[in-house]
């Protein structure tokens, strides 16, 4: 198979699987799940072949909308280092999700629907990665939203899941509102929707103000999909979905779409300085706020969700930094592995503790679940950037990039986060794994079986080594662990982040060692700065209030004036004229004769 065929197969195979499950396979759910998993394996295999390198390539395209000179929208694929690397992340994580789900969803009634949703997700994610133009990216962008709606709302008979699915979709829609405006503005400014043509034309754009607005609007899409402030509220709720979904899709791949999109349009971001600064700031603020929220969460999955938010903030920040895009993508890549590891580890813990998610009801799991503990600790080490783990290298790259560009504001925030992350992750590990058992569920916990710990071990390996050349070589052109560079430039950044690590970890040990309940209580952090509540109020006031007002206006103002007024006029006229129709022949005759006389008099005079 040549490269073009492979690329198209990778894109279309999951769609074919999803459609065939929908059309008929759904009756045999076992077969459906196997077919879906098989297709994920095939796409992974093909992507490994693609990753072998080669020239940048625009695969042949299919004309979607053809409006002559006015507009041409093609569905075309682009294969370069960026999309190849991202495809490998997407398909490998995707394959893991499928595999894990085979066991996890074995007895679920909606298994076929679940796997159809997974395949649809693979299709849409692949589409985003391979898209060669904005509209195509937007198409798959929306489809990712749909598949995430289907997957989060998988247990739709639960109110919480149904609400979370709706919330995720609508929040993303708000981001997409900006994204679409951005696309339209970019089209207006450069006359094209194709990335390569925009790249060529963007230098000639004179209206710098509008360009900045356009780039910011495009970034709105990423705010929604990558759950940045202020549209971050959907991601923690999305944990209502089945664990493989919340763990892998909403931690490793789907939310990375926003980062990927910005990396794809680096040339645009770089040309709009103001917008880039805003991007860096929003990323940094998100990283900080989410880390603060994570400090006081007690649900193990929620802590990880907020840490995901925080790490996404890092990646977005990198996209706003000049020459930082590669660092951001590098972090995306390492993060995908160690965050997947942490989520699956938490899944194993939850599973072992009989669906207990509160860390204060765990404790002492280190001895009962040694393998899970070790892998979880490795994941934590990578997340808190212990030197020589993968997370260390990628985070270092982002901080270095911000430092190099003298973006002091975001840089400072990012450094603060580097103090906070070790603190809350160490808190999680100490509370959940050390100390004594604090509930019966934790008391009865047993080590999970090999089906669950083998993926953990594999991911633990990746969490440590994924940053090194022998693994990144084919993937990331510009991101890899560079020890020589580190030693040569051991400067402010490295010092600060290592200090943060040491301070964070020791502070957490000091505060939480041997404690049975949280010694620190900061309600604002625990209640996520009340943002969800504020949003609910805002929605109640502005959207529901406005819609009620409009409804009343429609009922009692517009309808009466536009519809009833003419009707009333007709009715009144009728009832007045009816007085003269008394049904007596002689009266009619009398009026008739009067009228005739009047007419004659009128005509004669």
């Amino acid at each position, binding site marked *: 198979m040549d490269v073009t065929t492979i690329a198209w197969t990778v894109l279309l195979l999951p769609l074919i699987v999803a459609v065939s499950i929908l059309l008929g396979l759904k009756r045999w759910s076992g077969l459906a799940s196997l077919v879906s998993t098989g297709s994920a394996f095939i796409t992974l295999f093909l992507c490994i072949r693609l990753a072998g390198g080669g020239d940048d390539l625009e695969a042949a395209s299919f004309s979607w909308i053809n409006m002559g000179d006015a507009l041409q929208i093609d569905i075309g694929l682009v294969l370069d280092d960026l999309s190849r690397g991202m495809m490998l992340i997407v398909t490998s994580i995707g394959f893991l999700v499928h595999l894990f789900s085979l066991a996890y969803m074995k007895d679920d009634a909606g298994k076929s629907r679940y796997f159809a949703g997974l395949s649809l997700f693979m299709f849409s994610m692949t589409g985003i990665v391979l898209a060669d133009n904005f509209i195509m990216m937007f198409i798959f962008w929306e489809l990712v939203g749909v598949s995430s709606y289907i997957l989060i709302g998988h247990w739709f008979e639960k109110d919480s899941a149904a609400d979370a699915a709706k919330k995720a979709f609508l929040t993303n829609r708000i981001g997409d509102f900006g994204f679409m405006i951005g696309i339209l503005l970019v089209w207006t400014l450069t006359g094209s929707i194709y990335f390569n043509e925009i790249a060529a034309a963007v230098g000639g754009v004179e209206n710098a103000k509008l360009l900045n607005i356009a780039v910011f609007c495009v970034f709105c899409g990423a705010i929604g999909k990558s759950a940045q402030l202020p549209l971050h509220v959907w991601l923690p709720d999305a944990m209502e979905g089945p664990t493989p979904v919340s763990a892998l899709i909403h931690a490793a791949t789907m939310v990375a779409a926003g980062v990927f999109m910005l990396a794809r349009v680096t040339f645009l971001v770089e040309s709009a300085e103001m917008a880039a600064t805003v991007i860096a700031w929003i990323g940094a603020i998100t990283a900080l706020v989410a880390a603060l929220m994570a400090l006081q969460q007690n649900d193990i999955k929620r802590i990880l969700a907020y840490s995901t938010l925080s790490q996404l903030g890092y990646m977005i920040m990198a996209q706003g930094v000049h020459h930082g895009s590669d660092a951001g993508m590098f972090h995306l890549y390492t993060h995908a592995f160690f965050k997947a590891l942490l989520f699956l580890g938490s899944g194993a813990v939850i599973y072992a503790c009989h669906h207990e998610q509160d860390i204060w009801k765990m404790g002492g799991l280190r001895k009962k679940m040694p393998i899970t503990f070790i892998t979880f600790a490795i994941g934590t080490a990578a997340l808190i950037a212990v030197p020589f783990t993968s997370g260390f290298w990628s985070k270092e790259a982002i901080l270095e990039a911000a430092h190099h560009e003298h973006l002091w504001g975001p840089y400072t925030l990012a450094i603060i986060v580097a103090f906070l992350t070790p603190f809350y992750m160490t808190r999680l590990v100490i509370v959940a794994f050390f100390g004594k058992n604090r509930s019966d569920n934790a008391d009865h916990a047993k080590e999970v079986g090999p089906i669950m710990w083998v993926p953990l071990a594999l991911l633990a390996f990746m969490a440590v080594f994924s940053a090194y050349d022998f693994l990144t070589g084919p993937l990331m052109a510009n991101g890899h662990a560079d020890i020589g560079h580190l030693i040569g430039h051991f400067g402010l950044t490295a010092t600060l982040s290592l200090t943060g690590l040491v301070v964070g970890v020791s502070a957490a040990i000091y505060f939480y060692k041997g404690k049975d309940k949280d010694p620190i209580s900061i309600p604002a952090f625990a209640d996520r700065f009340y943002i969800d509540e504020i949003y609910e109020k805002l929605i109640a006031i502005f959207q529901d209030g406005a819609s009620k007002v409009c409804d009343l206006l429609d009922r009692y103002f517009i309808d009466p004036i536009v519809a009833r007024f003419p009707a009333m006029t007709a009715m009144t006229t009728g009832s007045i004229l009816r007085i003269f*129709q*008394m*049904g*007596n*022949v*002689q009266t009619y*005759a*009398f009026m008739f*004769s009067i009228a005739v006389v009047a007419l004659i008099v009128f005509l004669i005079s």
Partner: protein
Amino acid sequence: MESALTLDHFLIVSGFLFAIGLAGVLVRRNIIVIFMCLELMLSAANLTLVAFSRFNVHEGQPSYEGHVLLFFIITVAAAEVAVGLAIIVALYRSRETTDVGKLNTMKN
């Protein structure tokens, strides 16, 4: 030929006839009387027609078109009377009254 009768005489008579007929139509309650009064009005119109025709002298000859028209009208009027009386009979059969004051179902 010397005649005391002028067009005015005919018109006055015709006017009286018409006025009597109209008054009858408007004030009498019995539908048959009303009908007869209607005929009276028709006759008044006919008289006017003939009178105008007779006195429209052209080159010493009166115009006879009016007379001809009159015959048509009488013929049609005869038919009309037949129809009208038939309706009245039918009306009396169903309502058992000839009082127009009571024939006002159109009102409701």
